[in-house]
């Protein structure tokens, strides 16, 4: 209900009047809240509807399989259970040199609880604008990182997990909606080595840096949005409006005090350009300069991205993949590591760790030969996709 905010935040009326307070419907009995007693309140059903502004249904992945999971038993038998159905990859061209740093990130899906702290810290670090209810309804939120949520319920007839909305709507299926299995997947720009977004940009506004970062040149971007269309992970965000000094978006970028919160190290983007996760490139550059001033080489852990810094579960690890002793290099050698949509050969710089569940029944099932890599997972796990 949005708690029914009565006052706005400092220096702007952001939030004021949003939502409705539903606590007047809650009774207080025997020292505890009682949700089933109405103290003098009568509820009447009306025909009115209210559209909920939510981002959960945005950025559909079209049923492609992004998840790998296995049960503890399977993991003990085979540490790479659930993720060793690798695609047979061939490259059409020679790889570019990757001397020096090569930045990458590892995300442990076992550790992620889906709390959303990374989303908040990323928005604060990278001056991600608040777009408001109307634009959320238009699927135009600007978050650089999101947490995808995937649900599966047990089909009581077959005993198998059921993940598709179609199956839920089918009345013949008996599905146990009381016990939900959730998987959280933080999703941001994968900084692909063979980035599909880069090849379609007609003005070279997004190219690769020598350190493996997928960079945006905002001044060069003309807003064709081809890159966002070609991104298989749907992580690019387009500035449909000027979100600062604009009365239409009277949020924290619209007054002097609010703008003092803007991070001076990060460009405030204007209308008509594309933006996305930069792996906190401003922090990388700052760390490089710091190391240079201190006349030393960069060491592992010098750079921490905003999302990594704020993750309470340490699910995100950022580092130099070219440094064999870095934490990320070790994680990338871990049997649980896999990359999303490996079969596209976009070579993401972000690796995910297979989720291991402490359950008895097998989840990953038998390992399949590479040739048939995607059928089983499509069927079982391509889940109703959601986003927090």
């Amino acid at each position, binding site marked *: 209900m949005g708690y029914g905010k009565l006052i706005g935040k400092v220096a702007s009326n952001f939030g004021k009047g949003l939502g409705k307070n539903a606590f007047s419907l809650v009774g207080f009995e025997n020292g505890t809240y009682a949700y089933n007693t109405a103290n003098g309140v009568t509820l009447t059903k009306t025909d009115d509807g209210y559209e909920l502004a939510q981002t959960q249904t945005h950025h559909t992945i079209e049923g492609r399989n992004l998840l790998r999971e296995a049960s503890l038993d399977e993991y003990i038998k085979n540490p790479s259970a659930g993720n060793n159905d690798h695609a047979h990859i061939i490259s059409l*061209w*020679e*790889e*570019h040199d990757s001397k020096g740093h090569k930045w990458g990130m590892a995300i442990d899906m076992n550790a992620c609880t889906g709390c959303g702290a990374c989303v908040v810290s990323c928005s604060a670090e990278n001056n991600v604008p608040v777009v408001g209810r109307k634009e959320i309804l238009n699927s135009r939120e600007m978050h650089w990182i999101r947490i995808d949520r995937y649900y599966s319920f047990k089909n009581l007839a077959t005993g198998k997990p059921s993940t598709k909305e179609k199956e839920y709507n089918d009345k013949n299926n008996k599905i146990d909606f009381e016990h939900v299995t959730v998987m959280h997947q933080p999703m941001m720009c994968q900084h*692909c*080595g*063979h*980035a*599909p*977004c*880069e*090849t379609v*940009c007609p003005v*070279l506004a997004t*190219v*690769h*840096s*020598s350190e493996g970062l997928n960079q945006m040149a905002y001044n060069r971007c003309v807003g064709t949005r081809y890159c966002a269309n070609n991104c298989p992970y749907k992580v690019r965000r387009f500035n449909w409006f000027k979100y600062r000094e604009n009365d239409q978006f009277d949020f924290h970028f619209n007054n002097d005090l609010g703008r003092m919160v803007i991070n001076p190290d990060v460009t405030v983007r204007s209308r008509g350009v594309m933006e996305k996760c930069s792996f906190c490139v401003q922090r990388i550059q700052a760390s490089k300069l710091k190391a240079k001033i201190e006349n030393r080489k960069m060491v592992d852990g010098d750079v921490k991205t905003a999302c990594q810094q704020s993750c309470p579960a340490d699910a995100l690890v950022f580092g130099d993949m070219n440094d064999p002793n870095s934490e990320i290099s070790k994680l990338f050698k871990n049997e649980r590591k896999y990359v999303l949509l490996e079969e596209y050969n976009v*070579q993401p710089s972000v690796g995910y760790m297979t989720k291991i569940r402490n359950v008895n029944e097998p989840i990953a099932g038998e390992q399949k030969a590479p040739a048939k890599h995607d059928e089983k997972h499509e069927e079982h796990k391509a889940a109703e996709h959601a986003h927090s």
Partner: protein
Amino acid sequence: MDTNKVILGIYNDPDHIYDTTKKLIHDGYRVRDVYSPFAIHGMDRVLGIKRSRLTVAAFCFAMTGIVLALTLQTYASYFDWQMNVGGKPSLHIPTYIPITFELAILCTAFGMVGCFFAVNKMVWGKNADIIDIRVTDDLFVVAIDIIPNKTDVAELSSILKNNGAIEIREREFED
């Protein structure tokens, strides 16, 4: 040209001027040109006009464009400033094709227009020297060189007249 003077036979029927021209050339007169409001079919063959060499010029201009485009792109994206776009190689001719094609077309179009102007000595401020203002409307003119001491103007006039000329007059070119 050894003469500036021409005799003009003015006709109002394209068939008549076609036959006259054919006869005059057969008889050994030097026909300078035939002027007409529209293209008369077969007249170029009668006058012995050779196939235009503009196509050769066009080919040369296209080649210039291709070489220019490939040089530019190879220099810019390989020798001068390499960029990693989606992991693709910097020196890769197939990716240069769109710009190469466009530049070839551009050079050919501008080159041919420039070439046409140059060959026809068309410059800014030059006025058209129209042989007879009526050829821009509905009449046809054949111009025959009068070579001094050789061309029999009286005989030529009678040939023109007998073949349907509605008017015959002499004219002098300024150059």
